[in-house]
């Protein structure tokens, strides 16, 4: 409960204080939840089951306000509460928008924490939608020419998806024995194959749009590009993970019978998305757009890994979720700093920035390596496991998806080359302390996970096992 309330109160304080608010204080407050997450971890027992943190009757006695916690949730909470302070910290800008952005980011943090902890279907849906509100306004903040149109597209897209999920949840709710939205009750509903496919399609749609998987992605690139840096970071770093988390936490347990039906489709689309995003990213000039498409490519691979239903795929995917969050935030941070000091983020207009700003260059290189999945950076173990799981599923698909390691090298190095190397066309101003601090924390994340990915795997392993058991029970197979 604390992890939702603290950011929310901080959000209120920032709104009230207005311009007098202190960025360091906001950062401190937004990182406080990490401490509580640590405490929650102490409560976990060895079974890996969800432990209830808060339980109170809400709309009715059966629709309760329930928060629960397990390793999976813990991973997402760490990701959220680690990245949000960084986003706030890096977002210092001396204009009116800063207060607004900080307040909205804190609100977002509260909502995201809620999404990851919700144990009740309706609550999950409400937090899910609640997270959409701040990001909508954040995206609108930097009103570029097309901002409104793009934001509307983003909003409608995700909203339609969530409505489908709501319909599915309500359908399940009506079939529960005790008319409850509780996760366990929803899961206990016995569905036949057709029902399961229908319910699954609804739930899945919300997640696929959010991830986004190939045909549902057209909101993504524009939104990333138009949103202010903190918006892009929130979207790419954390919000996409909501969809992936949702697949694991809600789709797999609630409609396990339908997985076999959707599996080939989702994996096929994901692999197509991996290539599609990578190929488009090859030629982008706008750095943010490039990162958006590369993110499309990377995240699709995670989805494919999940749907292989193997331990490597799911746990590797979870690892990669965390890693992708760190890397995307790092990339957007660098791009933001470049844009702030040179006024552009178009590759043709930049070059030679390494000369002025060595720290930025080193960090950029590090994030780039992480994104390219070079060994001993964080990107490698996850991508390796994902490709391995995909390989076990289908050799040819793995080969196709594996092309991403070539393409990612091409577009990431191209981005580094044309912004950092070559003859200097623009100069960069020196970094401020808050930016350096953000860099250092992210760099530690990149290298640390690169060397010891097992920490994250251990965190989620038991929760994944439980979900895997549910899937195999429902499908009558023991894997």
């Amino acid at each position, binding site marked *: 409960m604390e992890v939702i309330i603290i950011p929310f109160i901080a959000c209120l304080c920032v709104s009230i204080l207005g311009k007098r608010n202190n960025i360091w204080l906001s950062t401190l407050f937004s990182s406080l939840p990490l401490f509580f997450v640590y405490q929650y971890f102490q409560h976990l027992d060895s079974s890996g089951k969800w432990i209830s943190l808060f339980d109170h009757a809400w709309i009715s006695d059966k629709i309760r306000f329930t928060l629960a916690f397990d390793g999976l949730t813990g991973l997402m909470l760490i990701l959220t509460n680690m990245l949000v302070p960084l986003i706030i910290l890096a977002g210092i800008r001396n204009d009116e928008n800063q207060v607004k952005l900080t307040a909205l980011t804190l609100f977002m943090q509260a909502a995201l924490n809620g999404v990851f902890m919700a144990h009740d279907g309706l609550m999950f849906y409400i937090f899910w939608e609640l997270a959409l509100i701040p990001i909508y306004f954040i995206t609108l903040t930097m009103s570029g020419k097309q901002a409104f149109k793009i934001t509307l597209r983003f909003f409608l897209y995700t909203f339609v998806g969530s409505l489908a999920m709501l319909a599915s949840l309500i359908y399940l709710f009506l079939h529960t024995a005790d008319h409850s939205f509780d996760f366990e009750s929803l899961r206990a509903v016995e569905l036949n194959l057709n029902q399961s496919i229908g319910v699954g399609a609804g739930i899945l749609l919300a997640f696929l749009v959010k991830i986004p998987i190939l045909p549902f992605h057209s909101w993504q690139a524009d939104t990333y590009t138009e949103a202010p840096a903190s918006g892009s970071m929130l979207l790419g770093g954390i919000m996409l993970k909501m969809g992936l988390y949702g697949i694991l936490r809600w789709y797999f347990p609630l409609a396990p019978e339908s997985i076999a039906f959707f599996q080939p489709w989702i994996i096929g689309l994901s692999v197509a998305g991996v290539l599609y995003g990578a190929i488009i990213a090859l030629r982008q000039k706008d750095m943010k757009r490039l990162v958006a498409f590369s993110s499309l490519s990377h995240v699709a691979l995670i989805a494919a890994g999940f749907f292989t239903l193997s*331990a490597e795929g799911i746990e590797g995917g979870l690892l990669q979720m965390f890693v992708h969050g760190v890397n995307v935030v790092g990339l957007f941070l660098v791009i933001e700093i470049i844009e702030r000091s040179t006024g552009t983020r178009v590759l043709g207009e930049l070059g030679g920035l390494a000369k002025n700003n060595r720290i930025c260059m080193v960090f950029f290189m590090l994030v780039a390596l992480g994104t390219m999945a070079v*060994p001993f950076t964080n990107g490698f173990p996850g991508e*390796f496991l994902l490709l*391995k799981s995909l390989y076990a599923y289908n050799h040819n698909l793995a080969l196709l998806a594996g092309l991403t390691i070539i393409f990612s*090298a091409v577009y990431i*190095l191209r981005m580094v080359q044309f912004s950092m*190397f070559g003859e200097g066309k623009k100069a960069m101003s020196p970094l401020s302390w808050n930016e350096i601090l953000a860099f250092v924390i992210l760099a530690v994340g990149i290298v640390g996970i690169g060397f*010891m990915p097992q920490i994250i795997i251990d965190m989620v392993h038991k929760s994944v096992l439980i979900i895997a058991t549910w899937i195999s029970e429902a499908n009558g197979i023991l894997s």
Partner: protein
Amino acid sequence: MLEWIIVLPLLGFLINGLFGSIFPKSIVGWLGTAFVFGSFVATCFLFRDLLTSLPGEGSVYLRVFTFLNVGNFHVDIAFQFDRLSAIMALIITGIGTLIHLYSISYMADDAGLYKFFSFLNLFIFNMLVLVLGSNFMMMFFGWEGVGLCSYLLIGFWYKNVSFGKAARKAFIMNRIGDLGLLMGLFLIYQNFGSFEYTEVFAKVGRLEVGTEICTAIALLLFIGAMGKSAQIPLFTWLPDAMAGPTPVSALIHAATMVTAGIYLVVRCEAIYALAPFAREVIMWIGLATSLMAALIGLKQNDIKKVLAYSTVSQLGFMFIALGCGAYTAALFHVITHAFFKALLFLGAGSVIHGMHHEQDIRQMGGLRKKMPITYLTFLIGTLAITGFPMLSGFFSKDEIFTAILSHNRLVFILGLLSAFITVFYTFRMFFVTFHGTYRNHHHSFEKVHESPLLMTLPLLILAVLSVIGGAVNFPNYMGEGISGGLHHLLSFDGGGRFSPILIFPEQSFEISHAQEWLLAALTPLFLTIFVVVRNKYLVKAAVPEADADQVGLGKVLANKFYVDESYDRSFVEPIELVSDTLTEYVDEKAFKSSFDGIGRANQYFGSLLSRVQNGNIEYYLVYMVVGLCLLLAFNLF
């Protein structure tokens, strides 16, 4: 001891990388060198221990921590110091130390000196991980890591855009190979359930020759080797990689990294022994690479480019040997090649240094008088690479040809042709550079100078090694006691926990007396070519034409068979076209518009419906009445 071998270069990287910018320049270089030298010393001691006090074990094993443990997949960060990795580690740290030493002086004027040394140390670290890792995962770590260092060092002078392009090309080409290697690794894990060399090879040992799995794995791994060791079709990056500082070319792109492919095949001998078809493929690709690179080398005028193509050509030889199953010969050639090619590159670096960064041999000439040490050592290197009798290159090439001869006559003849061409272009380069008259107009001849001691010392050491390097594995006819050292080392079976490197006994390449005579008759042929070259470039003092003046075959060769251009045409441009098409038409038009189309359709129907709301109460009344009627009707019927 094993941990020190690996940790020291990493420490060097971290210290120089993090604090190098605040150290004085003089310290940075010596610091970097010291760490590598420390690693070299540790390797020597450990190697001695391995040979003396650990006779039964055959290897030293060090498990650090579990890297990943997911489902059935388990992989450790673990190291294994056996005879094969010991040899590789000795080359890496030994040559590495010399090149570090050389770089202190060579790079002294560069502002990014600390960066240079930290990258070099990082490279040594990664290379050691590659060869010392106890499983395929560790090898892959090192494999990608050296690729990264290669990228960083080729693009070291980042202000130059074309250098950056060369660096990216190297990295991406390597990545293409890595994809193949990665697929090979997946296949290995799927079939053998482990990445540990000992476990995998133990299981492989139970399979039969010609097993499809082995062939598939062998070919996939070879794709990785193609990328790293610059074989057709992935060789074009290596000549471009000469954009990096010369010590980098010597260390990475001649002596160590590019031989990782050979190491991979030798390491997986158990698999390749069962895959004759894959070996055949390797042999032919090696042959083609060797010939093609040698031909291109004929018309290159950049001193480093000539050496680069000769490296590609020599790597081709090594793969031919591997294809014939002559693993020892290949490894032998790796060792001798590391000596003389590092020597040649460092010599070239010395020339470039003395010529104030002029690399075109047409601008040189007569340098023999100004740089005697460089001249002398370069001559030794040249003789070694051309296979002058009793120098190191002679023995290793001889072994390779022995193996080829007993394997396939056609390959033997073509390989011989390639070796002749080597003689031709190497001496061409040598004569044009050091003999004749000085031809540069920008710098006066007086300004050309011999390099300082720090640079000539490594040259001298390497020259000595190039001369005596053949002692590593003298052929049988040199006498029972001193011959076949490397072969014995690799085939050693102590019966301990680890089996020998070469699990399947290497086939012995016995050749008849007639064939021995044939080989012996080759030396006069070498000499003939030497005389031809000497006549053309020394006596007649011919100067190679500019690339633009080339005609016919010469033009094709000068343009490197138009390989880069055809790659651009057949891969780069289509992909860019696809990318643009996807961006412009599919993403913008198809996906986005279709979604927007739904929105627009809604708006249209909305505007149709909104006409109903015309604000006129009369209409509303009619609607109301109609609605009432319908409601009643619905309830009634």
